[in-house]
């Protein structure tokens, strides 16, 4: 492809063909069956669903129906998901065996398969995706193409304005104008720290150096986070386009995408996308007939959490052990092989093209005073709608958990939400109405992080939670600096002591002191933020720590050593079920006697609690 006209031509032609993807009233006889091929759905046999659809359509000789693989729709809890366009029918939890029925009933007879429709929070069955409460409060910018286009077909990306921003930048704008636009939009780094993206671009452009690099950080490592993964799987070209725009803006001709090898689908799709873009002349020499050259290479990470830290990531790209460098100098001054390097996160890049196309004012009109645009969250834990959500900044936690997330399952209570993964903190009930943005989260002791959002109900022990995250940081610490290498280990040991009932009040004091010291003295972000889960749980759940240390009790019974299981004599009906289920014969009492647990024998397996039909045990 040598000119923008050629690009426009593909867009015009393809857009008509794909109009039905976004327009429910599209004037077409065609139907597209979209099958999610994200990681979650893939592991629930969605590739087989895709194959079955294709086979059945071929066998029955049906015309005008296409089966398309797409990226993640977001409602992963209800996967595998199939959507039929243009009518936008949303089928949830589809199995390969359901394909026959969907084709027969929906495609041939024109009747919606009621059985496979998705239930909304209120229990009503919803036909259309847009009608689900899950989607109503969302605003999709970074995820705009996820679930709409086939990520392995560059034409589909171009049809929905793909590479139009790049064309505009190359033909109509100067690098300074590009940076100005990004700066004005208020876009901030989506990797976690929230550094203003425009400033970073400016610093890289202004840095002296013959050679510069653009790097995409796709080393997503927070437990429970899959935002970047979904973007790469659903819309890889958006990242490529943004990296090219960034390359033009800062004066780089080479880009690296550092992605974890544990994301095979994302890697595969990136490879296909890069290949297609090269074939189209959108990547490589003289892009779109201009004198701008840019190429992108993929580098696979071996799965070290610390490689998500930008300088450790650069070390890893250079072929060395992934260990952070001391900052300054920042990568913008001295990054890859000592050259000025721009490094942004996947989600940050996913916003760029749209900002260029729709303008900085449009973008900055979304969100709060200091945090603009939207944020993608990977919603997980004790919440009904586990999945991927994108909301405008300023949405409250309550809206995300209860409206979009559909509340807490099994009638339990909300206890806390964890944002920012091992670097973040816990947000308790009283802060549910905090509008989510970089500053407010920081103020309440957590952080935005890359977007993992884990909801916990009242069965979760906060000491255990802190211990879980410390276990993670201990095993992911690179070992370079002492506070992180040994300090986090000592913190973990204290937490283990508390959980096993051997802790004292002095241990809580020691824990806190150590946490503060590690924060102050570690080299990189990993160590500086590693104590956050402890600090924030101590801030909001100190009483629970105290119970573990002084009263030797864990109310949630997660800490086995501290769990006290007792039978409420008022509720016990002497049915004997608990007794029959107890594996160690710890329950005493005969006949019509109220049963009683011998604490010396009890191993706290909680089998009796589950066995009791009268909820008398707890």
């Amino acid at each position: 492809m040598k000119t923008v006209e050629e690009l426009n031509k593909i867009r015009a032609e393809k857009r008509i063909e794909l109009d039905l993807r976004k327009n429910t009233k599209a004037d077409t006889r065609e139907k597209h069956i979209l099958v999610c091929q994200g990681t979650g759905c893939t592991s629930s046999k969605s590739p087989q669903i895709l194959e079955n659809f294709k086979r059945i359509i071929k066998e029955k000789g049906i015309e005008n129906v296409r089966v398309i693989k797409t990226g993640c729709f977001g409602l992963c809890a209800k996967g595998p998901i199939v959507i039929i366009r243009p009518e936008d029918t949303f089928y949830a939890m589809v199995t390969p065996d359901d394909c026959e029925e969907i084709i027969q009933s929906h495609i041939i007879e024109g009747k919606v398969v009621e059985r496979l429709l998705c239930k909304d929070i209120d229990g009503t069955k919803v036909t259309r995706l847009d009608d689900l409460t899950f989607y109503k409060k969302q605003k999709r910018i970074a995820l705009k193409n996820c679930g709409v286009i086939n990520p392995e077909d560059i034409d589909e990306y171009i049809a929905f304005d793909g590479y139009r921003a790049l064309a505009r930048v190359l033909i109509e704008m100067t690098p300074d104008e590009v940076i100005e636009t990004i700066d004005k939009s208020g876009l901030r780094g989506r990797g976690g720290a929230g550094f203003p993206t425009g400033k970073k671009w400016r610093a890289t452009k202004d840095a002296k150096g013959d050679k510069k690099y653009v790097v995409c950080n796709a080393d997503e490592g927070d437990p429970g986070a899959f935002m970047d993964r979904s973007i790469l799987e659903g819309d890889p070209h958006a990242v490529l386009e943004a990296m090219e725009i960034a390359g033009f803006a800062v004066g780089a001709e080479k880009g690296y995408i550092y992605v974890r090898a544990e994301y095979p689908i994302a890697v595969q799709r990136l490879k296909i996308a890069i290949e297609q873009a090269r074939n189209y002349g959108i990547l490589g020499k003289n892009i779109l007939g201009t004198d701008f050259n840019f190429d992108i290479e993929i580098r696979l990470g071996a799965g070290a959490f610390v490689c998500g830290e930008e300088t450790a990531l650069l070390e890893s790209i250079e072929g060395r052990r992934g260990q952070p460098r001391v900052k300054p100098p920042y990568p913008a001054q001295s990054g890859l092989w000592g050259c000025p390097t721009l490094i942004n996160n996947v989600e940050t890049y996913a916003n760029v093209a749209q900002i260029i196309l729709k303008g900085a004012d449009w973008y900055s009109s979304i969100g709060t005073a200091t945090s603009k645009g939207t944020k993608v969250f990977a919603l997980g834990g004790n919440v009904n709608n586990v999945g991927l959500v994108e909301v405008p900044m300023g949405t409250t936690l309550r809206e995300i958990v209860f409206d979009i997330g559909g509340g807490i399952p099994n009638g339990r209570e909300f206890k806390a939400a964890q944002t920012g993964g091992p670097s973040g903190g816990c947000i308790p009930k009283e802060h549910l109405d905090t509008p989510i943005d970089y500053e407010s989260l920081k103020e309440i002791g957590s952080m935005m992080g890359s977007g993992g959002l884990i909801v916990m109900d009242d069965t979760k022990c906060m000491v255990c939670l802190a211990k879980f995250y410390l276990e993670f940081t201990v095993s992911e610490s690179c070992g370079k600096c002492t506070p992180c290498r040994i300090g986090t280990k000592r913190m973990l040991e204290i937490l283990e002591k508390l959980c096993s009932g051997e802790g004292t009040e002095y241990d809580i004091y020691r824990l806190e002191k150590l946490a503060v010291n590690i924060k102050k003295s570690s080299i990189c972000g990993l160590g500086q933020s590693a104590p956050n889960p402890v600090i924030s749980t101590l801030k909001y759940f100190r009483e629970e720590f105290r119970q573990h240390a002084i009263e030797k009790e864990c109310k949630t019974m997660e800490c086995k050593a501290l769990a006290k299981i007792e039978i409420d004599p008022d509720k016990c009906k002497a049915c004997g079920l608990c007794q029959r289920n107890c594996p160690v014969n710890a329950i005493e009492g005969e006949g019509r006697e109220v049963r009683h647990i011998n604490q010396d024998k009890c191993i706290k397996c909680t089998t009796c609690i589950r066995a009791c039909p009268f909820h008398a045990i707890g």
Partner: protein
Amino acid sequence: MAIKFNVLDIEYKGERTEHKIDDKSPSIVRDFNKCILCRRCVATCKNVQKIGAIDCIERGFESCISTTYDHSLNDVNCTFCGQCIESCPTGALHEKENINDVWAKLKDPDTYVVVQTAPSIRVALGEEFGMEIGTNVTGKMVSALKRLGFDKVFDTNTGADFTIMEEATEFVKRFKENDHLPMTTSCCPGWVRFAEMEYPENLPHLSSCKSPHQMFGAIIKSYYAEKNNIDPKNIYVVSVMPCIAKKYERQREEMKENGLWDVDSVITTRELARMIKQANIEFDKLEDETFDNPMGEATGAAAIFGVTGGVMEAALRTAYELITGEELKKLEFEDVRGTKGLKKATVQIGDKEIKVAVAHGLGNARKVMEDIKNGTADYSFVEVMACPGGCIMGGGQPIKNSKIRMTVDVAGKRAAAMYSIDERSTIRKSHENPILKQIYKEYLGNPGDHKAHELLHTHYTPMEEYRI
């Protein structure tokens, strides 16, 4: 230090990592139970010596400094230069101690224990007893050695004079025949090991001369033994060296003559200091004494062997007179002195211009090897020392903490002391050493002749970098 920082109690006790001690190599012991992961050794090995034998392995709490696949240092690309030891602040890296072997032999009345001391020991040993850096303690050192009970105290400098005779002769011959030029020196065992592992194709460029202490050991066990009617089997030669690679060199199979090692034990400057302290000798109060004769006579040329450029300078003094037959007026070759990593100079000898180079530090040695490999070496004689600064900064020398290393020019001070020994010497050219003349005349024949070759030369074998 604990008191200085008011650490009287460990508030955070907990699990500690346990590591096996690696003492397989003849030179270095690694005890990572003492390591604090400061990585100065890694930086030294990787950035200064450009070897990279050690780096961090595992991660987080488990991380430790080790070699490729956690093998012994003995089996990987380590050259035993010992610079890592010099940089280690905790003693997690140290030389393999041979003190007890030496004590045992000293106590044995049937063993004739001879000690020889390397040129650079005398300018550093005093530091271990609180003296100024660069103090020349030759007399006190000899006196201490005699008090420790050595039967004879000889000077490796005499050996160094032998090396110059042999090396200069070899060079003149090879220069005339244009045989594998440039020729490189071979007195540094770290350098030899480096060449054998990483540049086996360049081995013919190395001089076949043994290092001074090996030559000297061989002479002691042959000429000296014969002359004094001592059974060489009963002679035990101890070398005090600034170097830990010498411990490895000593036990190389080529370093044996008639089933006897040339040298039986090598101890470092630090080990000698420890022995003196163990014997409760008040070093600073000792009267100066002189080396035993006849093997204690040495020249100024030999004295500067331990500093970078010194071997080259000594060799040039002899080569000049060997080639031209005229007396060299100005003995100092300033161009080969100094701290520059790779020094080059052109020397006018008679009608010939000889280009020479001096490299110190293995990083610079690598440049020389690459030049030779690529055929771009524009010099015909190279001196190489593995340690930056030469033997005065060897891996067996007194350890200076980082603050001193940053603020004081340790190498400069030790080097200045060596040059002043040279200046004060009456004989400053190796071939004028009377004892050498005598031994060549009575025993060895001419330099490079059959007998000399047998005793004073060696050969090299290519070695796999990783023997695992």
